[in-house]
């Protein structure tokens, strides 16, 4: 059975979270690495190409950073964030990008089903969570997004570089004033913490992909690189680069 690494970092600083993800993306030759994490303080992250002034909620966030994955802004609070770093030739990511989303979302849906939530790909339906002009990821959807209660509940994005991929995902456990009326797990598990949802997601990944997730820590090179990259993610220059 294939073994993947599982790196867990709860309540980590925003710039560290992004620095470690990019370090894992750069880590050529590493096994598939899955990360489960959360943010302290709860930060708003802009998509790589977004302009700060196009996201009004950024004014009300305790911390704001810019991701290196695309898409809309996310308020990382009341959520479990996951990332997957792998070679683009790995069966999980090989072929059309859309199909790789479908594979990962099927595993996430499996974890949600353990709480009685039936999450489905949006397809062509219209959602109650759509909002114009907010720049927020959860207010704009594509056919590949996972939805329940007619709202978007999982945001995801990929960065592909040098034959590797970094896949980000945010699973909303509860909502925040900056994201409003979106799909969360509040109605089935009030006050659910990311640490409590993580075992369900781990088991769903293992069962869906037929792999073993082994708890691990980043190696010394990855940790060093994460620290270097975190400096950039903490910088005002990078935040305001668009």
């Amino acid at each position, binding site marked *: 059975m294939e073994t993947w690494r599982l790196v867990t970092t709860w309540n980590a600083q925003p710039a560290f979270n992004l620095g470690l993800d990019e370090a894992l993306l750069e880590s050529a030759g590493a096994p598939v690495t899955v990360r489960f994490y959360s943010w302290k303080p709860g930060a708003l992250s802009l998509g790589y190409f977004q302009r700060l002034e196009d996201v009004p909620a950024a004014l009300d966030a305790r911390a704001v950073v810019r991701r290196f994955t695309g*898409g809309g802004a996310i308020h990382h609070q009341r959520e479990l964030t996951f990332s997957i770093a792998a070679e683009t030739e790995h069966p999980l990511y090989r072929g059309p990008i*859309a199909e790789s989303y479908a594979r990962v979302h099927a595993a996430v849906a499996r974890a949600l089903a353990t709480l009685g939530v039936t999450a489905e790909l949006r397809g062509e339906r219209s959602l109650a969570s759509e909002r114009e002009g907010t720049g927020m990821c959860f207010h704009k959807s594509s056919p590949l997004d996972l939805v329940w209660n007619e709202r978007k509940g999982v945001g995801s994005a990929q*960065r592909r570089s040098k034959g590797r*991929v970094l896949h980000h995902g945010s699973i909303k456990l509860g909502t925040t004033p900056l994201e409003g009326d979106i799909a969360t797990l509040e109605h089935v598990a009030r006050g659910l913490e990311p640490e409590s949802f993580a075992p369900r997601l781990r088991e769903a990944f293992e069962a869906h992909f037929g792999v073993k997730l082994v708890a691990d820590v980043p190696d010394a090179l990855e940790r060093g690189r994460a620290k270097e990259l975190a400096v950039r993610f903490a910088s005002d220059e990078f935040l305001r680069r668009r």
Partner: protein
Amino acid sequence: MRPNDRKYAQSHEWVKLDGDVAIIGITDFAVQELSNGNESDLVYCDLPDAGRMLAAGETFGEIESVKAVSDLYAPIAGEVLETNAAIEDHLEILSKDPWGAGWIIKIKPESKKLDGLMDAAEYEKFVASKKH
């Protein structure tokens, strides 16, 4: 069959010589991978300034589709002469005409030898291997 008047990189860029200039773009396969057949799925791109020196294999830009940000790589070394301003606001041109109007940058190549790149037939086989 893809155009035989240019060479192809494994990272799905093409390069075509036009006198002393090399024109670089991305292939229909790359566009399809990024856009999933929906031309409005390509949303942003970042292109280099004229005058920048590129090494072969170096990242020269980035392109965002609805679902992924991907790097663009220089198939050969040279100095950037011009970028295609028309595509920055109209990325659908890449879907409509990746071989012509959808060119991305023009460079002054260090060498006109396109060593290590694939011809159309070789690229065809390479792409076929990616589909399985």
